[in-house]
């Protein structure tokens, strides 16, 4: 009888999200230096070269405006964020459902996937004015939710489908040796395999959802929408106001992206690339 000595075994990863962020703070230091340096350079160049405010305001005046208009901005931002979030949720979940159906019945996928890939390549945002017409002239949230959902749908669909079908043959062979049914194969092999693909689709979708909502608003909406606010302030030459709105749109987009990244980290803790 031999006794197997456990050699060169890595420890089970422990510690929560907090520790992960803590460890990463050091990793983020170079990026933080670039950010601060970039803003300082922007400020310095605008002052030194006497750049006109309508071309590019100073970061300090954008920040001041942001602070002074914070309640109005926050109100508009929240409205638009809800549109983006709604579109993201509807578009992504629909895409995942459709991908599951297409992966289960391959002939269907063969018939429809070329169109999904083609649709993924077209600038769907061009339909925004039409979408506004379809939904109460664009005065409600629904037209923007619609456009954001359509934008999110295709990348999530294509990524999820690729994930569901990129299962290793030996992983399936093992399941066949257990006489596993399709539901079991999806639950135990295909979906876990697809998760990293689904999350990369979702991360692309978060960015598209914000674009869809804000650009949709450019084509019509009410005063309480962030896109309308940016457009109106530009028209009346209040450029720092417009820039403050753009900054908020960026922050909201980043927040959504970070939220999905955290969900990804939580869902994929088993993966060597996440834990390492």
């Amino acid at each position: 009888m031999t006794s197997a000595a456990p050699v060169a075994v890595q420890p089970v990863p422990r510690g929560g999200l907090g520790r992960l962020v803590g460890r990463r703070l050091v990793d983020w230091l170079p990026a933080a230096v670039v950010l601060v340096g970039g803003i300082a350079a922007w400020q310095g160049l605008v002052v030194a070269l006497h750049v006109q405010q309508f071309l590019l305001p100073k970061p300090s005046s954008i920040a001041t405006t942001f602070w002074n208009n914070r309640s109005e901005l926050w109100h508009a931002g929240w409205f638009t964020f809800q549109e983006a979030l709604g579109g993201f949720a509807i578009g992504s979940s629909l895409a995942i459902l459709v991908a599951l159906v297409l992966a289960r019945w391959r002939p269907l996928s063969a018939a429809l996937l070329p169109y999904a890939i083609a649709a993924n390549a077209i600038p769907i945002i061009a339909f925004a004015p039409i979408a506004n017409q379809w939904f109460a002239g664009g005065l409600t949230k629904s037209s923007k939710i619609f456009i954001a959902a359509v934008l999110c749908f295709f990348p999530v669909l294509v990524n999820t489908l690729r994930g569901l079908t990129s299962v290793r043959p030996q992983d399936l062979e093992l399941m066949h040796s257990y006489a596993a049914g399709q539901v079991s194969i999806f639950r135990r092999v295909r979906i876990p395999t697809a998760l990293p693909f689904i999350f990369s689709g979702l991360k692309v979708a978060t960015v598209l959802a914000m674009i869809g909502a804000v650009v949709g608003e450019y084509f019509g909406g009410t005063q309480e929408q962030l896109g309308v606010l940016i457009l109106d302030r530009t028209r009346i030459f209040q450029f720092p106001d417009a820039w403050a709105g753009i900054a908020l749109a960026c922050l909201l987009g980043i927040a959504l992206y970070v939220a999905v990244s955290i969900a990804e980290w939580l869902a994929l803790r088993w993966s060597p690339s996440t834990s390492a």
Partner: protein
Amino acid sequence: MSVVRIEGVSKRFGNVTALEDIDVSIAEGEFVSLIGPSGCGKSTLLRIIGDLIQPTDGNIVVNGKPARKARIDRDYGIVFQDPVLYDWRTVAKNVALPLEMARWSRQKRAARVREMLELVELTGFEDHRPWQLSGGMQQRVSIARALSFDPALLLMDEPFGALDEMTRERLNMEVLRIWEQSGSTIVFVTHSIAEAVFLSTRVVVMSARPGRITSVIPIDLPQPRTASTREEPRFFELVTQVREALHLGSDLDRTAPAPETQEATA
């Protein structure tokens, strides 16, 4: 009673004949190795027994029923060359996978997983992820998984082919110990002559293109086999016998001129 009966099995992939007219019968409690050069169809034959590939011709009976029925009844456990562990499951949950599919209760599963990990000497690694283990440990998890539901038959497809010699010899001992303890029947595919002789009660020698059985050599080494078995004169005799049987199967390769010469004269 024979656990596996293979009658007149052939397999063609397009116009390539992978297996031709295979007849083997494997009795309960036997340890049978299939050995042959690469391309002789030994892995294909194993997959046909497991109903993962359908034969073109012939008949397979496993546990007295058609191979398909045996697979649906989960009559066999299988160990591949690659451990095929799921990264999204812990070691314990990988071992529990077939039990989960057979709808064992949570308590029964936990108890069996503990027992199996003890058997392959991996107690304490329950919560590790497969990629945190060495290759040899991963293969032991795979063996524990294959044995977890007490299959009458264990199919092993070059399970130690990717491991270094030392790990391979240690795992050979473990497989023998498990075979003695569980009393199951094992069909073992390998391309190592020493491994086949050391482990088996019978070695089935195959030749390539088309895959055929050229000889069946009973291994009469005393049981239980120990590390010193490898040093017995009888061990070397049997190794020589298997080697000669293999060369007989590839007779053409031996008498044919070397490839370079062939090219020069052509």
